[in-house]
């Protein structure tokens, strides 16, 4: 009897201990991303480290904000499961930033009251111009509360760093972004496109009442001038318009080698359908960052085959994967059932960059986190090797892509010939 009992206890202990052993070994299976070796495991961090997350979960910009939120949650789960912050767990304090500057300010006001170590968001650039100063602007500086770093993952407005520095002095340095501003994406893209497609003249169409598309337009103009391309026609429209045939007719009449379009996702789909199906334009259409969501070319919700021949520069392309982004996109699709887009990849990268800053600072203090954040250099991410340059701007290689049958292919002479059938 006695020995039987002993045996039972032994078996019980063994079964209980087995998963413990297996869990201990789990630590070896690290995510591919992360500064595991450059920064030692943190020792002073413990308990919960809070970061604020504020993306558009409602209204117009939710099309970008929802994938961003999902990617951040995925990254945080990875970070905590792998013990990236040692004893501490990373906790997201989430607020819906809506789609207007006012809702974003309100979200940020709630977040800074939670003593977060950093904030990721908001989705739109004009929201960032309004809401980011809640974390580091004049009022925060005067209140004596610690300034909080804000990491933008989709803000592409040109010159945000200098604008913030001009308005808020040293506080402006608390703004960092993962997303390449148009000033970094477009020149690289235009150069590749002009080179590969041999473009000499273009017509430009842009939405002039949205700051995102208007600033992209200005960058396009200077990049095209730099590449020696002549602009033969310029037409404008407004966000919310549904009929673009008049402007397109004028542009097509000027017979350019390509049409450059700076617009947001909602206008792009009808614009493409009208250009291709109604007016029969077959040449290349070069787009700004707004074209960078797979929905544009989808058969049921987007422009379908009318999107063929759209050339767009981006921060990331599913066809230019490294092993980190392959792992992320597979995991994302498994988790949420939709393919990851650029916005998801950037939000995922942003979360890891922030977590890395916390790990390397070995502190949840916002100022220490900012210092480590600013020092981010040669960090391997799904976007490629990521650094902040000496002006605090993000840096990684942009990518020129061409759409064919719903796919974003890398732009090469072969893929271009395939699309345009030359």
């Amino acid at each position, binding site marked *: 009897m006695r020995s039987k009992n002993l045996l039972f206890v032994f078996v019980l202990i063994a079964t209980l201990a087995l998963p413990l052993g297996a869990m201990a070994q789990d630590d070896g299976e690290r995510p591919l991303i992360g500064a595991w070796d450059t920064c030692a495991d943190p020792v002073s961090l413990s308990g919960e480290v809070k970061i604020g997350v504020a993306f558009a979960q409602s209204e117009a910009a939710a099309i970008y904000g929802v994938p961003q939120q999902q990617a951040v949650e995925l990254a945080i789960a990875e970070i905590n499961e792998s013990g990236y912050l040692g004893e501490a767990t990373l906790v997201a304090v989430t607020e819906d930033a809506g789609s207007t500057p006012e809702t974003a300010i309100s979200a940020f006001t709630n977040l800074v009251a939670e003593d977060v170590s950093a904030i990721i968001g908001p989705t739109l650039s004009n929201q960032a111009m309004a809401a980011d100063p809640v974390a580091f602007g004049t009022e925060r500086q005067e209140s004596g509360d610690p300034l909080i770093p804000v990491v933008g993952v989709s803000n592409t407005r040109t010159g945000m760093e200098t*604008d913030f520095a001009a308005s808020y002095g040293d506080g402006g340095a608390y703004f960092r972004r993962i997303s390449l501003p148009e000033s970094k994406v477009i020149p690289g893209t235009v150069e590749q496109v002009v080179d590969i497609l041999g473009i000499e003249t273009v017509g430009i169409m842009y939405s002039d009442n949205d700051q995102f598309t208007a600033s992209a337009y200005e960058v396009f103009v200077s990049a095209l001038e730099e590449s020696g391309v002549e602009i033969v026609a310029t037409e404008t429209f407004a966000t919310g318009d549904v009929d673009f045939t008049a402007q397109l007719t004028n542009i097509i009449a000027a017979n350019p080698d390509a049409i450059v379009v700076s617009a947001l996702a909602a206008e792009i789909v009808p614009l493409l359908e009208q250009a291709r199906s109604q007016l029969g334009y077959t040449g290349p259409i070069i787009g700004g960052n707004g074209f960078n969501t797979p929905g544009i070319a989808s058969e049921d919700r987007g422009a379908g085959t009318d999107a063929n021949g759209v050339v767009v520069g981006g921060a990331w392309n599913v066809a230019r994967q490294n092993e980190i982004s392959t792992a992320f996109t597979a995991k994302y699709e498994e988790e949420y059932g939709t393919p990851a887009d650029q916005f998801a990849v950037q939000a995922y990268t942003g979360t890891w960059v922030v977590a890395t800053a916390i790990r390397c600072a070995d502190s949840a203090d916002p100022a220490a986190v900012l210092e480590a954040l600013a020092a981010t250099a040669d960090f391997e991410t799904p976007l490629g090797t990521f650094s902040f340059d000496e002006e605090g701007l993000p840096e990684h290689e942009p990518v020129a892509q061409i759409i064919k049958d719903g796919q974003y292919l890398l732009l090469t002479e072969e893929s271009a010939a395939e699309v345009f059938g030359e």
Partner: protein
Amino acid sequence: MGFVSDALASIGLNEFVITLMFVNAILAMSIYLTLYGGMFSLANAGFMAIGSYVSVILTQNHDWPFLPAILVGMVAAGLIAIPIGLPVLRLRDIYLAIATIGFVEITRIMILNFDKIIAEVYTRLHMESEPPKITNGPLGITGIPVETKLEYLIVTVIILSYFMIRMHRSRFGRALAAIRQDENVAASQGINVVYYKNAAFILGAMMAGLGGGFSGHLSRIIQPGSYGFGTAVDILAYSVLGGISSWYGPILGGLALTALPEVLRPLKEYTGLINGVVLLIFIAYLPGGLGDPALWRSVRKTAGRIVNFINKGKTANAGA
């Protein structure tokens, strides 16, 4: 005070939201004046834009102090209302609404292209110097210092409320009420219809301009896109939800409609849906709005009945 603000913050009404609520209350009051005179004008989003841009340009580019700047913004909106009101107020009902929406769009597009217009003038006049960037087109003006304080707004709302209460009993208020009921009869009674309608329109424009000045110095960025058709409808919605049968209706509407989505914030993607349902219920069951005096009378009556009932219960118990 700290206790109250903490309690409000816990249901989603942080200091910024409360400030915004009062800004919107001022905007709601601005449309009340024209509605009181029976004019269905949606022009106030345009006057708000004018007040906002004029005051922000003064504080940003010319280092004016805040209070004079918003007062100038208010006067500018009033001055622009004069040439707009004279022809437009000859229209009635839905035609007036359409014409005033046109004014809102024209204002927005003028602000959008203001720098281009200035640049064009410079080239036509062969001026050597670089044309200035004033409204900065669609990118808007950024880095505006936050000057709008809750105290200013509460004082403004009190002053405007006093003005409204006085107006109801004044010759001006009675004239407007008469015009609302029947313009022709009012005219036959010797009321100068054109004068009173324009005066109400200009005063409303000045209030909208003042609200615009406050809102411009609250959100750090102003863009032409913020003053379009959507804003015009929002302002109308404040006063419709609040009701125009009393002067405090629009204030209640502005406060409630701004607060509602913030209180519903925890519902995330369902916020908009529930917000809409709540509004529908209000409109369906309270056609007179939140500020309907009849509603408050019945609330008082019901409360009185409940108090009576409880008291009766007490006496009954005591008797037993």
